[in-house]
């Protein structure tokens, strides 16, 4: 029982860190460019499909992962140059519409190229086993541990980037006061491009890493987009720390909460009802957490501005 919870905590950590990869890019774009990008999840989907395609072509996981990251970042740069740079000056409504349009286009294009069937990415053979954490009691898949390690490393890297480098200083300045940053002479356009490329690369990393665990399918972007949005709103738009805390919170509620709710509900209902109700309540409680946070702190837990 307690091992079950430990396992779910690890799963929550893994899910939360993957959410963080998306939320980090999203919160920077939101915060620095004041741009609402509904299509962020599409970059995640594109990254996963590219990884799957490269994997099928070359048969090796890590090179496929790297290629997917590079190409998705390139797509991000192109989109920023062609579209987002202009959207940035427009109203939120225009941004909602344009990025909604991008989702439709991305989904349809992927469907045209890859078909409607989900693709599979093979797990690297060396990581397909499980690691014994507590002898005979708790095994945890090596691949999931890898995801956790990569996620933690990226979080550390982003922390160093944002807090220890000049670019990071510009990003923080941009998130807290974009006009002032431009006045201070920071070349804001290359910064936007960089932020976008970074966001896209992180999306691809998450998409490719999750590929072997989930089916790579059209629409996968939307299913992770909503939690990612909830994360950055809970954490405070523009705040990297908020994105990390929010991701872990949401990850934990979604997995550990699911388990606890399901177990708790079994005492009230029959187990079939409990196992449908539990996950629902967990998903809902993430939304409700966001609502509660916004009600009491309308700019999130770690507001970047003001």
């Amino acid at each position: 029982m307690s091992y079950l919870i430990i396992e779910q905590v690890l799963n929550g950590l893994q899910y939360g860190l993957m959410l963080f990869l998306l939320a980090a890019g999203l919160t920077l774009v939101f915060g620095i460019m004041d741009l609402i990008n509904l299509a962020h999840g599409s970059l995640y989907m594109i990254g996963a499909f590219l990884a799957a395609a490269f994997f099928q072509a070359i048969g090796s996981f890590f090179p496929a992962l790297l290629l997917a990251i590079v190409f998705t970042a390139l797509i991000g740069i192109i989109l920023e140059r062609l579209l987002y740079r202009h959207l940035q000056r427009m109203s939120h409504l225009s941004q909602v519409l344009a990025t909604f349009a991008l989702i439709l286009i991305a989904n349809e294009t992927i469907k045209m190229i890859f078909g409607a069937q989900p693709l599979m990415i093979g797990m690297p053979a060396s990581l397909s086993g499980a690691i014994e954490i507590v002898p005979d009691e708790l095994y945890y898949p090596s691949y999931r541990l890898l995801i956790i390690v990569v996620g933690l490393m990226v979080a550390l890297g982003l922390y160093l980037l944002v807090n220890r480098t000049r670019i990071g200083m510009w990003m923080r300045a941009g998130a807290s006061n974009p006009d002032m940053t431009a006045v201070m002479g920071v070349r804001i356009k290359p910064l936007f491009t960089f932020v976008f490329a970074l966001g896209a690369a992180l999306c691809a990393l998450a998409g490719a890493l999750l590929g072997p665990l989930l089916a790579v399918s059209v629409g996968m972007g939307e299913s992770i987009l909503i939690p990612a949005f909830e994360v950055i709103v809970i954490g405070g738009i523009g705040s990297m720390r908020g994105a990390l805390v929010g991701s872990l919170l949401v990850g934990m509620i979604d997995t550990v909460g699911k388990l606890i709710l399901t177990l708790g509900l079994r005492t009230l209902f029959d187990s079939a009802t409990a196992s449908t109700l539990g996950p629902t309540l967990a998903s809902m409680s993430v939304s409700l957490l966001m609502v509660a946070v916004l009600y009491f702190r309308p700019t999130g837990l770690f507001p970047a501005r003001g």
Partner: protein
Amino acid sequence: MNPTPFNASASAQTPFTQGLPGPWTAIFVAVALAIYPLVMSALDQAFYVNLGSRVLIFALAASALNLALGYGGMISLGHAAFLGIGGYVVAVLANNGVYSAWLSFPLAIGLAAATALLIGVVSLRTKGVYFIMITLAFAQVFYYLAISLPEFGGDDGLQLARRSSVPGLDLSSALSFYFFVLFTAGLAFVLLYRLVASRFGRAIVAIRENERRMAAIGYPVFRLKLAAFALSGGLCGLAGALLANASTSITPHTLTWHQSGLLIVMVILGGSGYFWGGLTGAAVYLILEETISDHTEHWNLVLGALLLFIVMAAPNGVMSLRQHLAKRVGGARGHGTAPLAATSHEGEAK
């Protein structure tokens, strides 16, 4: 009264009067909508009668959203929730043997409006991007509810054995259902007209234009916005109730944020803040979808490209799309009577 002699820099169209229909336009629209299904039935085209019903239903939903989004400036990415609530109320009642429209429709409207009121109380405290996200999150809660509760049929949704019953009417035929929708939506349109043309409507538009000043001159801004949001939700609930009847089923797809996005698309296509915006938008959208889907399975690609083009081509943002088009076509035809234009002697004072 003579028409007001406007000066060169004066304009007949302000946000208060733009897009308000005159009586003749309204009569023309009503007559056209009444004749359309008769012609289609005569030609034995039941399909087009049903398409007409769907257009009217989405016109109502989009017009309801237009009240919040176009008139009130509240960018809600969660109106699918109200549409879904309306639909599920009808479906759940039907599955429990209650088919009376007298019961289910008011309940659908009431529950949707009450939900909108609650959502509004929380959401309207936030601004900008946060408002968009929080309405989205709320709608998501209802989506999760629908897909996981067995009472709501999970992923498959609910089927209705037959349409709601209205005393003296048999809604099973395409034609009679169309007229039922036309009558119901028509009532809603009259209500919406009275809303936007009333002092309440003017206050809502003015809040969109300058919320700070509206507060400073003594308007209870929060309550006014909340009222508009709740009314918008309630009318969307009515559309949902009709929608469940149209297809005699309701699925969780109605509650997705994709659906919320499509409602916004309809409002923008038709003209946000214009009275006929919802009707025009729903008609344009559904007819385009029908026609283009006949030729390609990639309708969403076409729609996406079209939307991108619209956003990039609208010079002052999509809110002004309608004005922009009107100018292109050659002068906006203002049907609006200008209730607040000064009478002639002040106008001539210059």
